[in-house]
């Protein structure tokens, strides 16, 4: 544990733990909405913000938050308008984002190593200022996702019903888009823009192998995210591996373990109790008007 005597290591760990909690708390709504890959796309857009920040000598994280937020709002507007053309519009935004990022970072004379740090995370780049940004924004994301859980659950579960309930559906959707952008950008330091999406999605996928309800899935996913982030940073510090990759591989490892255990448990239970007759719904006779 000597490694964490270094301040930069401690900052990386605390930052990763906050993100490990906040990312799955947001990700569960994205998974439920079938938008599991949206974080990845917004990460691409955030990279353009990083490039612009480096080029203009402004804080890359701050410019990335702005770029990613604008991108997320654009994506949400496309999604809400229609579904068929949205696919291509998203592709344009994603590829444009990463191409713009690589181009701008190159123009800014920053080294390849610094581009790598933004893409895949780094233990040494979290400055004290970054840590404060991560703490404040991460807490805000977490509080919003927990306090608005019934409303966000309703919107993601059945958007039309939510509208008939009088919920501000558009505002809630925009809130999800903006918090996704914020989460992606604050996670950029430790995990990297290309891998942050995994931390939103994989713990949720792991948790739902074993849970029965939404609330329990959310709690379990947050615990798994916390574990993967903490353990991943520790592995990265001890074995000198890339932090983002270590965090994500640990999250995927937990997924495999939980999936295997859950499958084994189901098989055992089925053997103990013979399966009942399949439920058949008789087709009732109908009254048709002529």
């Amino acid at each position, binding site marked *: 544990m000597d490694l964490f005597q270094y301040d930069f290591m401690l900052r990386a760990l605390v930052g990763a733990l906050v993100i490990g909690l906040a990312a799955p708390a947001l990700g569960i709504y994205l998974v439920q*909405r079938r938008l599991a890959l949206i974080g990845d796309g917004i990460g691409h857009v955030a990279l353009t913000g990083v490039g612009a920040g480096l080029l203009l000598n402004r804080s890359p994280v701050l410019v990335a938050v702005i770029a990613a937020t604008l991108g997320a709002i654009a994506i949400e507007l496309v999604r809400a308008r229609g579904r068929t053309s949205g696919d291509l519009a998203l592709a344009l935004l994603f590829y444009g984002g990463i191409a713009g990022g690589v181009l701008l970072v190159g123009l800014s004379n920053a080294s390849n190593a610094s581009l790598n740090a933004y893409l895949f995370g780094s233990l040494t780049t979290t400055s004290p200022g970054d840590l404060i940004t991560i703490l404040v924004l991460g807490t805000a994301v977490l509080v919003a996702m927990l306090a608005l859980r019934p*409303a966000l659950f309703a919107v993601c*579960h059945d958007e039309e019903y939510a*509208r008939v309930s009088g919920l501000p559906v558009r505002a809630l959707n925009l809130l999800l888009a903006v918090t996704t952008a914020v989460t992606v950008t604050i996670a950029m330091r430790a995990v990297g823009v290309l891998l942050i999406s995994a931390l939103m999605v994989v713990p949720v996928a792991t948790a739902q192998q074993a849970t*029965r*309800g939404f609330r329990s899935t959310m709690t379990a996913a947050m615990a798994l995210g916390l574990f993967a982030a903490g353990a991943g940073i520790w592995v990265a510090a001890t074995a000198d591996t890339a932090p983002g990759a270590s965090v994500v591989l640990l999250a995927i490892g937990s997924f495999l373990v939980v999936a295997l255990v859950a499958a084994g448990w189901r098989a055992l239970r089925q053997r103990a109790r013979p399966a009942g007759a399949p439920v058949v719904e008789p087709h*009732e006779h109908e009254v048709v008007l002529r």
Partner: protein
Amino acid sequence: MNTPLVIQVEHAAVGYDGRPVLRDVSLAVAAGEVVAVLGANGTGKSTLIRAVLGLVPLSAGSVALFGTPQRRFRQWHRIGYVPQRLGAGGGVPATVAEVVASGRLARRGLLRPPGRADREAVAAALRAVGLADRAGDPVATLSGGQQQRTLIARALAGRPELLVLDEPTAGVDAASQAAFAGALRGFVDGGGTVLLVAHELGPLRPLISRAVVVHEGGIAHDGPVPEPAGHHADPDHEHVHPHCDEEPAGLWSM
């Protein structure tokens, strides 16, 4: 007439992509009525109730709910909506009680955490549809009929004055249809108003006070429930003719 009509549709028209689905439809529902919207598939009966709820925009005409123009209507807790089926979502599990608890949002608002009144209303709604013992089960493990009962429980949990149901009994097993009819009878006996779309009335038939038949985008009949004609009147008749002949492709896929 001192109390305003619960639903008032005047000369409403709706079109999808420029193709008219409803034209010049007028409909009034007073408090305490149980109105069934009948008609073959593809005639626009689901569109009619979606327009009443503001889920599809009108191209002409007007809708008023409880005497307020629908655009300015904000008292959504007075309305319980039961859609055709539960969306599958992205596969995140949700328990029956969690889905039904969504029905309290219109009454509780965005930020207030659920309290004892909310939990009691959820439990009462689950009892009304006979699913109290399944409250903690994932909805995905329920049969189609039980999922449909979950949706009516969600609507009832908000203690609405008007229930709007879209094909509540389509593809639902007999036990669930009976439980469904029982829950609806309890709601009507308590003074509730109902607007429902149906292709078949089944055990709901004795509850219906008025029938509206939609045909080719207009209202062809507004009055007592029509008697089944011809061989359809025979309760044992085999129902073999196809339903979907006139249904325009893609109309219901949105």
